[in-house]
């Protein structure tokens, strides 16, 4: 299977003419067809058009092409594209075709990468199970009775099931890392402002980040190198020069320090997850890293801070879908989105904003201080990605509070704006993936990718492929 190979391997084979882009794209289409019951795509491009594009790209292939040239990829349906519909997982945008293409998608298309289709997601990014979608739940390739995680569930499954070489997800409170972890792949949440948000359908603007999901840290680095950088169309994108992520990633991590916040390692969540993460920390010590225990008391307030801010912002961002300009009306919002819109509207209302929204903003500052102090004591922070492995369908849908708690270990990273990635670190006894989270200081993507690469060089978890039950 070609799609099980790394991007660098595939690029090498293409240049040696041992394989063709047409073969690669055909395999991608076939994998999508075989795994159709996983329901990870909302829209797919026409097969003949894809093969035609592949043949044209084969004809134009030369050694100086970008590494991503000819690579089949997908994007979450929250990115607007001119050629395929954009729904953000919601019936509200059922017939919406964008007149423009998101910056991140355009940058990838400009390299010659080939967009296969657009992935299913929790609508508007609201959820961590990919059940809150108008296009049917996404199934976990490791066991289709279980959720994929979310909200970028479709992207994670497309990569895990080897349908594409990589996918672009969107992470507001854990939406890339959570499904990456549950599906046994690698996912990167970038520093806020590192990748342009232009053309990303907003969930919560001060928390939304654009990042890749792929089979390994090595592949994440290649995609990040392509999509990172300031964008004149996104005032919140950073002008800071982009680091080199693709070279020197095998440089040692010896002597670096990993912080372990005691709030992330209490015995109040799934014991299999906890022991797996502790084992991963031991593994990293063997690579030459040391550990230090951290006390970050504000981490306990992750969920209330996150849900106040994210709901407030989403109530504003979704106000435009009032039924006047887009075909379908407000009654099409699913219960989870309606809940968040109402919560946010309430939190911003006169008389309540001071107690709710503004207090959450103050708490956000305290949380930022907690992280700043932590990074004075260590180079990385390690954490589980989710408090439990993938749940069975319906478990989170029936329990909205449990659904919120799924963001316990991921949400503070968005609130603070630092980068974090999830890498596979083991499996439960039932063979469900468990993900380790490696968090860095602002703009330290290169550092966390280096550590993740070192960890993946020493482990094989990320090489495990689910057998797709057809």
């Amino acid at each position, binding site marked *: 299977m070609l799609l099980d190979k790394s991007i660098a391997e595939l690029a090498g084979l293409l240049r040696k003419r041992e394989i063709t882009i047409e073969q690669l794209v055909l395999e991608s289409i076939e994998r999508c067809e075989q795994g159709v019951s996983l329901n990870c795509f909302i829209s797919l491009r026409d097969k003949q058009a894809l093969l035609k594009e592949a043949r044209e790209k084969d004809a134009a292939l030369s050694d100086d092409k970008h590494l991503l040239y000819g690579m089949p990829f997908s994007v979450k349906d929250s*990115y*607007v594209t001119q050629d395929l519909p*954009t729904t*953000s997982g919601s019936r509200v*945008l059922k017939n*919406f075709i*964008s*007149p*423009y293409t*998101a910056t991140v998608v355009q940058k990838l298309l400009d390299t010659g990468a080939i967009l296969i289709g657009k992935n299913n997601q929790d609508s508007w990014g609201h959820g961590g199970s990919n059940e809150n979608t108008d296009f049917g739940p996404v199934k976990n390739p490791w066991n289709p009775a279980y959720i994929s995680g979310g909200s970028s569930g479709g992207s994670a499954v497309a990569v895990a099931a080897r349908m594409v070489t990589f996918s672009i997800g969107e992470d507001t409170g854990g939406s890339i890392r959570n499904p990456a972890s549950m599906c046994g792949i690698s996912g990167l949440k970038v520093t806020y402002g590192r990748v342009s*948000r*232009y*053309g*990303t*359908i*907003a969930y*919560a*603007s*001060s928390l939304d980040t654009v990042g890749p999901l792929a089979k390994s840290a090595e592949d994440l680095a290649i995609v990040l190198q392509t999509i990172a950088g300031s964008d*004149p*169309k*996104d*005032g*919140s994108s950073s002008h800071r020069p982009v680091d080199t992520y693709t070279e020197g990633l095998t440089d040692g991590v010896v002597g670096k320090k990993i912080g372990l916040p005691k709030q992330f390692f209490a015995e109040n969540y799934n014991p299999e997850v906890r022991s797996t993460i502790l084992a991963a920390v031991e593994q990293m010590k063997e690579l030459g890293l040391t550990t230090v225990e951290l006390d970050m008391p504000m981490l306990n307030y992750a969920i209330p801070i996150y849900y106040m801010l994210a709901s*407030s*912002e989403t*109530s*504003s961002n*979704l*106000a*435009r879908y*009032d039924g*006047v*300009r887009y075909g379908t009306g407000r009654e099409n919002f699913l219960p989870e989105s309606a809940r968040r819109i109402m919560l946010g*509207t309430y939190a*911003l*209302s*006169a008389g309540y*904003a001071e107690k709710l*929204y503004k207090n959450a903003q103050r708490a956000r500052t305290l949380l930022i201080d907690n992280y700043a102090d932590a990074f004075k004591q260590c180079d990385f922070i390690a954490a589980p990605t989710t408090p439990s492995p993938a749940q069975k369908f319906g478990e989170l849908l029936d329990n909205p509070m449990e659904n919120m708690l799924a963001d316990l270990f991921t949400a503070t990273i968005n609130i603070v704006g630092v980068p974090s990635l999830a890498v596979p670190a083991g499996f439960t006894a039932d063979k469900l993936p468990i993900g380790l989270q490696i968090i860095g200081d602002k703009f330290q993507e290169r550092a966390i990718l280096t550590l993740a690469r070192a960890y993946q060089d020493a482990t094989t978890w990320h090489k495990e492929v689910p057998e797709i039950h057809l």
Partner: protein
Amino acid sequence: MTNQTYQLVCGMEVHAELKTASKMFCGCKNDPFHAEQPNTYTCPVCLGLPGALPVANKRAIEWTIKLGLALGCKINLFSKFDRKHYFYPDLPKGYQISQYDLPFCYDGTIETEHGTVRIHRIHLEEDTGKLLHKTVAGKQLSLIDFNRSSVPLVEIVTEPDITSAAHAAAYGKQLRSIMKYLDIANCDMEQGGMRLEANVSLRPANETALPNYKTEIKNINSFRFLEQAIDFEVQRQTALLEKGERIPQETRGWNAVKQETYPQRSKEDAEDYRYFPDPDIPPIRFTTEQIEALRAELPELPDAVSRRWEAEYHVSRSLAAQVLENQAAAELYETLFSRAKQQGVSAEALLKNIQSKKVPAPESVGAEKSLAAFEALQKTESIDTTELTTIIHKVLAENPDISAKYFHGQKQIIGFAMGQVMRQLPQKSDPSQVRTALLRELESST
């Protein structure tokens, strides 16, 4: 007895569209009134399409600050944009990007002939689209034109310092003249490029506390309507107060046909705008140096120019105000007046003759020709004083009874004397000049 017992308490909110080349948060052309077609100057950003993001127009921010500096405002070195939420079809995002608690400018003043008006704040926001309700093929439709959507809009809010309808109009005119002079806004009121709102309430004449209500008269598009609307409100509110009624807090509109205000919205359905900082636009920080650099770019303002002209050229300020429309005009008249001064010509008389169109305006012929034309006119009209004195002496010598009758109180004899003098003058002359000279001669001969 209406206006004697109650006193007007009035503050104003004025919106003006800035004439930047592009819109407030996108690169679209900012020229809504001259677009050939509706919805042509639009893009994903000003249409509020999914995924689009605003990027603030630097020039619009600088112009807002310049306006603030021109009005003596303080400038917030740390400022930001906020989202103001309400639902209306002409507002494509469901919120307007505005400024809430940290406007760019605050605490300034505007001087008018009716008194000072303090500026409370000046902030920058985006304009909305424009609704057009019309019947198309027998169907009543509401159409939306987004050419105006996201055009930069400054809002200038005063303290409740305005004491009469005339005061309000004078304030508005002064503000408009400053914005036009700074060349930052066209202030076309008919098109809606400048829109007026007056907050009107009354209090007993001997009190100083603010009334516990206010009536907001919205969307007034001329200074005449502004005066009429305020006068109407004063009468309406006086009548209610005299009847002992409480006046509700409400928004009212002005019906120019019926010449009356009418209720639009009461406080009970006042909206909660749920303001919060726009997370798409980073906060804006200025250094004192940056603000001072903007201040240095400010021209000498019309008020200062007219003061200086009064001192340097003895031009009355009310006359000067009529030509101080823009900086180009100010420069032109400056040249004209300084040349006039060099040649010993009265700038005031020159300006009067230009305004009465007896002398061609420098705007059309240039300062030199305008001045030359005035000098030529003076030659034909004013009489050489020596010649005039000689003729007066001659007339008085030939008609000795003129002096005699004049000193016996028969002042009407002056008419006869003037006729005699005028008849002997070589050309059509200024009677007042003759009269003055004649009287001076009669008085001095005693």
